[in-house]
Every structure is written in C-alpha cells, then in structure tokens.
C-alpha cells in the first residue's frame, strides 16, 4: 500500500499553550483512520492544520509523498483535502444547493448563476448518499441530522481524495450514523482516504482500519483496530484506567416525596399530552432519539418555552411556571442543551456566570453587591463542584467543555434549587469529565436533589438513571424502572413505540 498522507513532527503553539507538540500521523490510501483523544487533545487543531485553516509552526505535511504547504482552506481543497466540520459551516438562510456550491457556483458565459446545473448535481449527490432532503428550503428549516448530511454532501462535492470527518455522528441517530458508515465504506472502495473523529469507540471499531490517539497535544500511539480494545484505547486517551464509569444506584425508596409532577403538558394544539413524576433523590432519564421531544417537554414544563396547556405541581402545589424566573423561585434549574449559546455568557468570568441568578444573596442590607462575599462564595462553590480553573475571575470561554458545564451546574447549586434538569450535560466533553459529571449527579441526588437527565447516549441512561421515560415522536411511550432499564428495552421503545 502507499501512504496517501503523512504528517511529520507537526507543532502548533497558541498564545500561552502548546496545542500540538511533534505530532506524527501516517494514513494509507483508502484507509479509514480514526483520530482519538479527549476534548482539548488537539484533534480538531491537527485537522485544521491539515486542511489549511491553521498553519503549523513546525513540521511537514506530505500528500502522496510530496511536501505541501497550505496557506488557506481553498488551497487544501484544490489539493484534494476536504473537511466536514464539527460545528456546522452552513449558511442558515441559504438552501442546500446554494450551500453546497457556495464560493464555486456554476455560471454561464455571462457570469450568471446556472441554477439548473447546480440543482442537478446536488440531486445526484444526495441520490448517491441515499438521502432525501428538500433542496429548496433554507437549511435552517432542515433537521440537525439533515443539515449534517448537507455538510457531508458539500464535502463530497469537492471530489476530495482525503476527507476529514470531525465528529459527524454527534448529531445523528444510530440509524443515520449507520447510513453514514455505509457511505464511508463506499468511498473507501473508491480509494478515498478518510480521517474520522468520534467520541464513540463502538463506531470506531465498526468502521475504521487504524487508530491514532492524541493526548494533551502529544502523540500517544497508533494501532490497527484489530489489535486493540476499548480498555486500551481509553487508557491511551486519559492516561489512566477508568475505575467505573457510573456510580452505584441506590436502593429505590417507594415512599419518596413527589417533588415535581407534570399531570398534563401539551406543547401544541394537537400534540400528544404527556405526564410524568419526579421524586426526591432520584435521577429520571428522558431517553429517546434526537428530535423525539425530550428537551421540548422539559423546557415547556419549566416555562423556558411556551406550552399550549400544562398542569404542573411542585411539592403537591399547583404552580403556573410561566417563566424560568418563576421556576427558579420554586427551585427548578435548567442546564441547557447548548452550553455556549444557552448556558454560559462566554465573555463573562466564572464568578459572574455562577452568580448571575443569585446576586440577591450578596446584597446584605444595602443596594450594593458585596464583591468580597461573592468572590469567596464562588471559590467555595467551584471547589465543591470541582471546577478546575486558575481563578474565579477566569473568563469561561477559556475553560474546557467539562469545566464550562460544571460552571453552569455551580450556578444552580449556589441557589436553593432542588430540581435540576440536565439536558445533554456530557455532549462534547471528554471521557474523564463525563465520569466526573456522573459522579457529581449521583452525589447531588444523595444530598437531596432530584434530577431529570436528558441524554441521547444509551449507556449513560442505562448506567445512571433510577427511572427512565422513553420518548418517541413527542410522546412518553414507556416509563422503565429497575431491571427494565437496559439498552435493548429503551431502544425498542424509542424506535418502535411499544
């Protein structure tokens, strides 16, 4: 076999950090090569160097044995390297066709757009992908998974020889991911070389040939998939063996108080009517496929979004919960799905983010904030939750994903809240931090909190929850307890509804 791509001794420094230190990577032609590592390990940075978005400080990039130096993404594309971005690079108000051909539109001899030829080519692309998408509507009207496939089609339309897939499955359901793997195998048969980034090890074992692991910007090792196993890879990634990912579940207490009871919640006029109950000291899972209406229900219950009609009882008392401020008053906090756009004020310091909704407690008698008390309390909460940062005044944008998530959690723990809604708390954070979040959640329920845990990752749901409400197409189709909580049972309800 011949080496399609070789990175030698790549080093990249950002102000204050060495993002990458002497990284080597060799990928054979037609190989699907997994790039593994915790968040912040340097995978995305390395791929941005390979695709010309960043330039390395040291080291060489060789394509088919020829040294290349890309000063922009366009140069990399011209050389046959394309990247499917982790964060969508689509323009929301343009349709799929316009997005795919953005910057290299087909034109006729007068310089006008030839929509027809672009549409035809896009249709052919999606046909090849086996995906049916409305090509005429703005992409913001498409589902997240459909947008992901537009992104994939965009990269494929470049006829790349080397295709980088940066966490393409993060937003896909298992079926959709399976479909993507089919596409990848097909591309492989056509000698396309792929670099695949994913946090899901099972996916990597399913579709990849070789694996390279990075940790803290260093090269850890490479291996054939057939010669390794999950435990080894996790050890390479985190530098230590994870003892046990999930804390033990306590014995269920059948007489536990109801802290939150949604007797009926209807999101829209003809939408299904849902009900659920959350007890003291329990973790209630909201399981289901992406788009099955879990977040929507939770958000409507606490007044973050409008509901058509709802009847909610907090500690057996009817409560209107017309907005999040009222939810806060009765002690319900939300950890939103998207921590950067909904959870945090990224330009603010840790202190300001944590105290944003509990400034009242620093007021004392006068109208002014006691900054000393605020600072000290922040430090104390940070220690309690385990936020790793140099300083309470550190800007949260500079923290890792896991630490950012802990800052959002701290905000609610600094309050009198007793009910916490965790919407995908472990999305996009690394294995070690995930485990810390699980432990923290269980510790909180032991301290008396009740948690609604929304997650698309089955192992989390199964490993952590005391009870699981399974969603399908906007309705709770089953509520599982005890031994019923296993992957097959949850998946069966989520996909078939019975």
């Amino acid at each position, binding site marked *: 076999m011949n080496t399609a791509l070789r990175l030698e001794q790549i080093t990249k420094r950002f*102000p*204050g950090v060495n993002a990458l230190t002497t990284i080597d990577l060799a990928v054979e032609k037609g190989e699907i090569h997994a790039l593994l590592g915790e968040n912040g390990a340097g995978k995305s940075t390395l791929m941005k160097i390979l695709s010309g978005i960043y330039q390395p400080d040291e080291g060489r990039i060789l394509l088919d044995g020829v040294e290349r130096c890309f000063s922009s993404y366009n140069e990399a594309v011209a050389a046959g390297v394309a990247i499917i971005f982790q964060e969508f690079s689509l323009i929301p108000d343009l349709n799929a066709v316009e997005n795919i051909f953005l910057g290299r539109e087909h034109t006729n001899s007068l310089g006008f757009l030839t929509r027809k030829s672009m549409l035809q080519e896009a249709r052919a692309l999606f046909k090849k992908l086996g995906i049916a998408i409305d090509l005429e509507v703005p992409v913001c009207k498409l589902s997240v998974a459909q947008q992901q496939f537009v992104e994939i089609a965009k990269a494929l339309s470049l006829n790349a020889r080397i295709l980088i897939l940066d966490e393409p499955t993060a937003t896909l359901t298992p079926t959709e991911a399976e479909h993507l793997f089919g596409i990848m195998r097909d591309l492989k048969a056509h000698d396309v070389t792929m670099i695949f980034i994913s946090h899901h090890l099972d996916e990597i074992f399913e579709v990849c040939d070789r694996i390279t692991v990075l*940790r*803290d910007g*260093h*090269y*850890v*090792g*490479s*291996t*054939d998939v057939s*010669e390794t196993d999950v435990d080894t890879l996790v050890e*390479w990634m*985190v*530098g*230590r063996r994870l003892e046990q990912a999930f804390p033990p579940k306590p014995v269920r207490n059948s007489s536990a108080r109801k802290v939150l009871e949604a007797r009926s919640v209807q999101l829209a006029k003809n939408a299904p009517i849902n009900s659920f109950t959350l007890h003291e000291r329990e973790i209630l899972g909201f399981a289901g496929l992406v788009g099955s209406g879990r977040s929507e229900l939770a958000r409507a219950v606490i007044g*973050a979004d409008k509901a058509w009609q709802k009847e909610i009882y907090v500690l057996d008392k009817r409560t209107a919960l017309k*907005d*999040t*401020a009222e*939810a*806060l*008053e009765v002690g319900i*906090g*939300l950890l*939103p799905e998207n921590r950067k*756009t*909904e*959870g*945090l*004020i*990224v*330009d*603010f310091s840790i202190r*300001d983010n944590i*105290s*944003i*909704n509990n*400034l*009242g407690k620093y*007021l004392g008698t006068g*109208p*002014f*904030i006691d900054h000393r008390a605020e600072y000290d309390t922040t430090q104390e909460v940070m220690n309690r939750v385990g936020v*790793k*940062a*140099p*300083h309470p*005044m550190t*800007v949260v944008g500079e923290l890792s994903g896991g630490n950012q998530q802990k800052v959002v959690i701290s*905000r609610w723990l600094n309050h009198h809240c007793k009910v916490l809604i965790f919407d995908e708390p472990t999305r996009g954070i690394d294995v*070690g931090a995930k485990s810390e979040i699980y432990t923290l959640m269980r510790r909180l329920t032991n301290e008396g909190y009740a948690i609604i845990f929304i997650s698309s990752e089955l192992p989390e749901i199964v490993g952590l929850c005391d009870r699981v409400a399974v969603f399908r197409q906007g309705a709770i189709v089953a509520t599982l307890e005890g031994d019923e909580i296993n992957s097959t049972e949850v998946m069966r309800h989520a996909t078939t509804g019975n």
Partner: protein
Amino acid sequence: MQQQATNLNPIEQLSPEASSIPTSTWLARTKRTPFFFPLVGLIAVSLVMIVTTENFLSANNFLNIARQVSINAIIAVGMTCAILSGGIDLAVGAVMALSGTLMAGLMVAGVPPSAAIPIGLCVGLLFGLFNGFFVAYAGMPPIIVTLATMGIARGIALIYTGGYPIDGLPESFAFFGRGSVLGVQTPVVIMLLVFLAAYLLLNQTPVGRYIYAIGGNEEATRLSGVRVARYKLLVYALSGFTAALAGLVLSSRLMSGQPNSGVAFEMDAIAAVVMGGTSISGGRGSIIGTLIGAMMLGVLNNGLNMMGVSPYVQNIIKGLIILFAIYISRERRKRR
C-alpha cells in the same frame, strides 16, 4: 508499528495551580480594565493639543471642555446602558428636544420650574418606557423601534412649539445651564452625579450585572431565571431619562426651548460610548470609558477649534479617529 510514547506527562500531574494565575502588577491590572485603551487615547489626543495650541493647557479651558461635553456625556450614560444590553437608542436627541421644549413651554405658561422640570423629566422617562415596551415585550429590534420613535418625539416637539424656539424663561431656571456649585459649573456637576449613579448601578448592583449579562448572552441570562424583559425595559427608561436631563441642561444653558436641538446627538453619544471601549454588540464595556470617550470628543472639538481647523475638516478628522478607536478595540478582542 504499535508504539506508545513513554515520556508523556500524565494528566494527573497537571494541577490547576500550575496554570498561570493572572499577575497583579499595577500595570497588568490597569491594562485589563476595559477603559485602558480609551484612556491612552485621551492622553494622546490631549498631548497633541497641548503641543499644537497655545491655550489648551489652562484650567479655564479644561472647565470649558467639561461643560461643552456635559450634554453629550449625560446622553451617553443612557446610551451606554442601552448598548451594554445589546441594544441601542436612536431617539435620545429627539427626546431631549421634546423634554427641553416641554419644560420651557410649561414655564412660559406660568408653571413654576419646580413642577415643570419633573414633568419634563417624566416625559423623557415615559418615552423611554414606550421604547422599552416595544423592544422588551414586543421583541422588536431596538434600532427600528427607536428610529421610529425618534420621528415621533421630534414631531411632537415641533407641533408643541409650532416650530419656533420658546424664549422668556424665568431667571431662576438659568441655574442648571449657567450657574455653578462651589465654583464648578452646574452642567459639569450634574454630569458627574449622573456618571456616579450609573457607575454604582452598573458595577455595584444586580441590575447592572443583568444589563451586562443580557448583552453578553440574552438567552443564557433568561434561562438562568432572570426576567430579561423587565431589565430591558428599564434600560430604555434610563436612556429616556438621561436624554431628558440633557434637555434640562440645554434649555437652561440657552434659556430657550429649541425644538430643533439635538439633531444627530444620538450619533455623538454612540461615538462617545464606542470610543470609550464599549462593544457595540453589548456585554463588554464600562461607564468610565464612556466619560473618557466623551472627553476625547470634547478635546478634539475644542483643540481643532483653537487650531482654526474648518468645521468641515473637523468632521473628517473626528470620523477617522472614531474608526481608529474601534479598530483598536476590535484588535483587543481578537487577541483574547
């Protein structure tokens, strides 16, 4: 070729203490304050004026500049709040004219200043609430809402006055524009009090933190349980109030209610705010920066006048300096 590098630092050894704790030398601390660059700019512009003009460096001239900037600076306080919250208020100049003429009209009609002034200030506040209602509760973009109400306020002022200045105000009213307190001109005193109040509000109270937070990330602030709409309403009310206060000072200074005053004052106020280092998209900035920004504009006006630069050329020079100031602040953001 299975291999594993052996000389890696295990993660466990990376303690948080190892990372850099912000150094707290005096210079480093000063540099981090949001108004550091505006302050450097003000000093630089002042130095140029000191070198190029003879009389710039006199106590008299300094007080002169402070008085000249006071009206713009007072308006800029409300504007700072609006911009920090991620909004803007284009109606300030027109609201100033409306409040100013209303006070003048009432006084000429025989209402004592002690009643006419509060009424004029209340009208500014009400106009601000009107803006705030559409922005906060109807969810309309502030730039459009205040563009529309700018026309409404100006129109009311013109109808009320018939388009003519209202003269013949009582002598006692001159205090706010021409008088002095302990040797300092009243407009300067009012300006400093307004800035002090705004400083306390923005830096020492929860409301101030919410204003910054809304500009930083409105959705996150709302989901944290803060009643965002309430504080947005307040911001526009404040902006209307400070505009009315500027109207008080102007009417008193001119001893006349001028329905055509304050045209394009919103632009000067915005310039003062952004030159003071406040981000036009909200969430970052400081009220002290705004004072510095307003002073910078005042120094430029004053100095260029003394240098005998034509007003037409002055506009160009001021425009270029504003561009430069914003360029610098953008650079600052990128590096972070």
